[in-house]
């Protein structure tokens, strides 16, 4: 037996000997510098995709849901697939901002602002699909309990209604949480920007923040409470999304494993999306000292863990189908692996179960280019997971006479492509006008921010700082 045990050393959170001032200028000056030409090019591309989304929605509303590839057994197609996919991506932001905060994972400070922004924009993209798929969008307000002359109330027994409450609560709470985190950093921009208009606008949203300790005490309390509220919230949202399927009687959907399996899948795809965006952004904006390779390694470990959980669930589903003894269940799972949509099933298996296993190797975990590649593979895999679940179960239901093959139309495809326009338009605006890293939070995890690192006269003790950095480097 090993006689001595050492903790795995924590990597230093901020690299490159930064002071508080250099952190401020590294992050805040991104917003204050003149807009780079590349930004305009990217923004133009994103806007044209957004325009595509708007025209597809307009066409859909004008013509009706018949323009989608839905048919008689397959009443749910790309709309629900895209909805679940986008909501799932959003979950990583809340996981990073709330759950990692409760677990005192200080490394989250480098990526939480970024990931929360991703959450909000992903939920916006997701929210479009349930809204437009209803057919008569002009009466969408019927989903809310609004008194009306028809005495018509929403059905509180329906998982689809739960979903309305879950997703709108999730969006609102994520937005509030994000804004609370932004207030001190907006004050930083207010105090740094030279132009009068900019000062007014940032000043307006900074609410007159002074950084007073009396305020910080309430602020930190609010932050902790919000983290505590968001943690069960994020778990509930994907649980309720999975209820849309699991509460029905369709073979392949009607299982109790769905909530945990959906939540794991959501975190899995969300972390991959954070990596995709972060690897590009930290290169362009030169923030590698804060968003370090160690962060990527930690996220890769989370991807590996959640990927394995998802893989376990895929295999467990087969076991349960067999063990249930229900013919329809057994049949649908065999069809998934060997039937018409087997190609989608095996794409999913490869992308979600096999590909993250490469991260057992430390070398690959720390390889940035490879991480970028896998992060995209994972999101393709997660899209196919939702496709497999939705389409295979519906296209071959209980009655063979009603079976039909599902294929999307060009409207389905272009609407999905268009949501990337919405996502990237919002994301580029965020990168341009808001600090992409939580400046105040990053400062608070640096060694010189901690009172313990100073002696009784208020002089920094270099040995203490060195001791930390030495283990850490």
């Amino acid at each position: 037996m090993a006689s001595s045990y050492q903790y795995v050393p924590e990597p230093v959170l901020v690299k490159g000997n930064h002071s508080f001032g250099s952190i401020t200028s590294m992050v805040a000056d991104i917003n204050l510098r003149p807009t780079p030409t590349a930004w305009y090019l990217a923004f133009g591309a994103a806007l044209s995709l957004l325009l595509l989304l708007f025209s597809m929605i307009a066409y859909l509303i004008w013509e009706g849901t018949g323009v989608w590839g839905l048919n008689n057994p397959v009443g749910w197609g790309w709309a629900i697939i895209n909805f679940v996919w986008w909501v799932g991506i959003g979950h990583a932001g809340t996981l990073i901002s709330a759950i990692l905060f409760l677990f005192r994972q200080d490394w989250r400070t480098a990526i939480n602002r970024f990931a929360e922004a991703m959450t909000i924009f992903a939920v916006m993209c997701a929210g479009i699909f349930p809204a437009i798929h209803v057919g008569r969008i002009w009466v969408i307000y019927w989903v809310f309990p609004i008194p009306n002359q028809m005495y018509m109330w929403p059905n509180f027994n329906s998982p689809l209604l739960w979903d309305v409450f879950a997703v709108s609560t999730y969006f609102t709470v994520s937005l509030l949480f994000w804004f609370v985190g932004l207030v001190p950093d907006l004050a930083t921009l207010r105090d740094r920007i030279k132009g009068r208009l900019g000062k007014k606008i940032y000043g307006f949203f900074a609410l007159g923040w002074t950084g007073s300790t009396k305020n910080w005490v309430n602020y930190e309390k609010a932050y902790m409470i919000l983290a505590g509220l968001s943690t069960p919230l994020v778990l509930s949202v994907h649980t309720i999304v999975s209820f849309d399927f699991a509460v029905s009687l369709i073979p392949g959907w009607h299982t109790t494993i769905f909530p945990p399996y959906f939540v794991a899948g959501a975190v899995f795809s969300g972390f991959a999306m954070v990596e995709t965006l972060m690897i590009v952004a930290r290169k362009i904006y030169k923030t590698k000292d804060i968003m370090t390779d160690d962060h990527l390694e930690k996220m890769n470990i989370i991807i590996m863990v959640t990927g394995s959980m998802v893989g376990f669930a895929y295999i467990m589903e087969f076991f349960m189908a067999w063990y249930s003894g229900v013919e329809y269940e057994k049949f649908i799972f065999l069809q998934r692996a060997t039937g018409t949509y087997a190609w989608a099933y095996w794409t999913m298996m490869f992308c979600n179960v096999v590909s993250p296993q490469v991260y057992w190797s430390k070398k690959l975990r720390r390889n940035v280019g490879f991480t970028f590649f896998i992060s995209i593979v994972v999101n393709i895999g997660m899209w196919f997971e939702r496709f497999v679940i939705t389409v295979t179960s519906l296209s071959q239901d209980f009655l063979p006479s009603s079976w039909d093959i599902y294929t999307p139309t060009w409207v389905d495809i272009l609407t999905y492509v268009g949501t990337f326009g919405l996502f990237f338009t919002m994301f580029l605006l965020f990168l341009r006008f808001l600090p992409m890293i939580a400046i105040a939070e990053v400062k608070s995890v640096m060694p010189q921010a901690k009172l313990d690192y100073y002696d009784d006269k208020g002089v920094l003790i270099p040995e203490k700082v060195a001791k930390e950095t030495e283990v850490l480097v």
Partner: protein
Amino acid sequence: MSTQVVASDNKLFGILAEFENPKKLALACQRVYQTGFQKFDSYTPFPVHGLEKYQGLPESKLGWIVIVHALMGFFGALTLIVFVSYIDYPLNISGKPFLNFPAFVPVIFELTILLSAFGAVFGMFFLNDLPRHNHPLFTSERFLKVTDDKFFLCIEAEDSLFDDAMIRSLYEELDATHVENVYED
């Protein structure tokens, strides 16, 4: 230490001192608190953990605001759903009971969280007197650095122990890097 005295007709808000690191600020806060000052506050670019103890600040009351909102969310949602599905228009859906409590859990839960989050965010703004865009400290040029890398302490003129000369010598003793008077705008 640099000092700056600007004559002004406006009412004096307080005397502001700048410190170079959080620990010096904490030690200054401790001294000011122990001297018996009541109306003073420190200002930092980020939350300095433990500073509130040096300053003798009580625990935040925000939790009480949130629990009240949580209860409002819980009972409000319960009342809404029971009114809608049982009292106003009971509708038989697949023979399910009208008071189908397990099915009501998700919406009640979501609304409890939603109201609590409103309580946490707006309660925090309420306790902090935000939004307040016209703080007297914003008249100080040096104070722009409070959101960057400088640490400030301000003893307000309304304090009963307030004494210009005494505070200035106290600040000097505490190693402040800059001292100035701040006037109401």
